[in-house]
């Protein structure tokens, strides 16, 4: 029973990580229908940027965190401006391969600058976040992850429901032409959504870096793990990303714990194929029925 509970808690913790890694991905897809294969590298860029500010720049944690967010905001803006905008209206394969190419470029850059070794942040989390319930132990980083994901979920919920920019974004996602004709600045919305999504990705990268250490290869692997998560949750649902993340996380830890540790990494993809065949729009995705 204890083993089961520990697996359950671990699964939820890992799942939350997947969930927040997937949030930025979903935001990009929601606003511009781009499948971002460079997501893992965006996570890594954020984590490494933070790393160099903290360890090389010796800046205080809060300042470097804010600087990283600003930097990533700009980065997302520039990516959209220079790479994605010329491709609006182009074939899907070009958009996908462009993000694949960007992924290779970013990965090469990160490896050139920081190398492929594992780096760690200096410890800065307060111990008060540590939770021990009977035999179950939750490390402070995981409770912080939980906290951050709830905060961001609420923030994004409010942003999309209440703020005018959020409503513009939803309108563009829903129907680009109608939004344009009603006076929404579609280009600005695209740029803004990439900027915000890059910011979210960087933040998730930092959280992942705190937990597992910062390593390009691990982080870009998570960028691919995002696909089962978002398909399960629905490609355009942010809440769905979190829930999909938790389900995939649980699935991984339980197959790893009970069935076969080597099956652990491939189980999300088997589930992915199954979901795609049965319910391609996921649990919370917008259903567009098309029968050809």
């Amino acid at each position: 029973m204890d083993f089961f509970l520990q697996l359950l808690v671990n699964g939820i913790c890992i799942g939350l990580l997947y969930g927040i890694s997937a949030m930025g991905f979903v935001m990009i897809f929601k606003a511009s229908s781009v499948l971002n294969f460079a997501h893992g590298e965006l996570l890594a860029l954020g984590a490494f940027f933070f790393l160099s500010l903290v360890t090389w720049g010796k800046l205080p944690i809060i300042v470097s965190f804010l600087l990283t967010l600003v930097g990533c905001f700009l980065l997302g803006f520039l990516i959209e401006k220079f790479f994605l905008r010329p491709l609006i209206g182009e074939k899907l394969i070009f958009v996908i391969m462009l993000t694949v190419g960007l992924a290779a470029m970013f990965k090469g850059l990160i490896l050139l600058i920081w190398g492929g070794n594992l780096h760690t942040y200096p410890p800065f989390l307060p111990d008060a976040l540590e939770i021990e319930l009977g035999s179950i132990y939750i490390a402070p980083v995981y409770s912080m992850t939980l906290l951050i994901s709830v905060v961001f979920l609420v923030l994004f919920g409010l942003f999309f429901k209440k703020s005018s920019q959020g409503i513009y974004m939803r309108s563009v996602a829903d129907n680009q032409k109608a939004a344009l004709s009603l006076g929404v600045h579609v280009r600005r919305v695209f740029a803004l959504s990439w900027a915000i999504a890059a910011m979210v990705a960087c933040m998730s990268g930092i959280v992942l870096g705190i937990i597992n250490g910062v390593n390009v290869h691990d982080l870009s692997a998570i960028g691919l793990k995002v696909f089962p998560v978002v398909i399960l949750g629905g490609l355009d649902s942010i809440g769905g990303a979190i829930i999909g993340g938790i389900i995939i996380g649980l699935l991984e830890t339980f197959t790893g714990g009970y069935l076969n540790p080597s099956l652990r990494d491939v189980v999300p993809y088997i589930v992915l194929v199954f979901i795609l065949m049965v319910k391609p729009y996921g649990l919370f995705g917008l259903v567009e029925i098309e029968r050809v």
Partner: protein
Amino acid sequence: MKKMSFHPCGNYRESYAEELSIFETWFGRVCLGGFLLLLFGLAPFFLSPYLLYILNNIGIFAIAAIGLNILIGYTGQISLGHGAFFGVGAYAAAILATRLNVPFYLSIPAAGFITALVGMIFGIPSGRLKGLYLTIATLAGQFIIEYVLIQWESLTMGTMGITLPSPSIAGWTISGDKMFFFLIFLSLVVTTWFAVNIMRSKFGRAFIAIRDNDRAAEGMGIPIFKYKLLSFAISSFYAGFAGAIWAYYMVSITTEPFNLGLSVEFIAMVIIGGMGNIPGAIFGATFITVLNEVLRYATGILMNVSVITSMGLNMAPLREFVFGLAIVLFILLEPKGLAELWRILRSSFRLWPFSY
């Protein structure tokens, strides 16, 4: 049907047969024949073994890239699992050769057919999914095949790998780059011929119709699902065929090379070469293979420059960066790929002095 010795200055075709002709002029046919003659007559005898090795690799990857081009460029179905199919072919040939002692001239096509079967299984989602959902499904296929190749140890020997016997026909052993050159490039010529001709047939037209507008194709009576599966089968056959030759050429294989990176390289070959263009796939395979070799050479030199080593920089990731940059630049600047550049180059000669 008359053949002109020069390109006409307008469209003077009178029958469908003329419309479908591959060579518009005798000149083109002679050029291709001459090129092949030079390739087979000179290349294996005058090139150094290293250059021949690169050429052989280009030939193998070109076969696989042609297959992927049929799927992506002509049928419009994006597959991220081509690298895994390549691996399935390599393993099928290796297992057939070591366990059942099948001679190579049977095991290579058999590997192609086995891969075609696997490709059809992973093409089944295309009946229900399209666009990016299908892409993600093939991505899952890539990981699942990779997992099976590593974990099914009783068959694939897992991470140990398999060593193949050298192929022999009638007591005559094929080994060394020179002999393989003939095997590989004869296969390339045959597969290219087959691909070019299948695109002129009813099947090719159906593929193009599905790519351009699947609803209209269905409305015109093309059974979409069957043709999509067929396209998956043909493209996987090419991948498996190339993989099998590669396995024989490399002598021993492990699961390591058949990862997502290889799939991405295949798509890069198709895009850089030119989608929907059979010679384009060969250009793309050439470009990517040569780029890889040049970058390996360049990073090797840079590693020995004292300034860089003293700074502690590792230049190996430069390869990855330039590879990504090449994809991005081609997509942004010349989305039709090298085939389009080749066409522009040819027509500028033809239209000289009024070329643009």
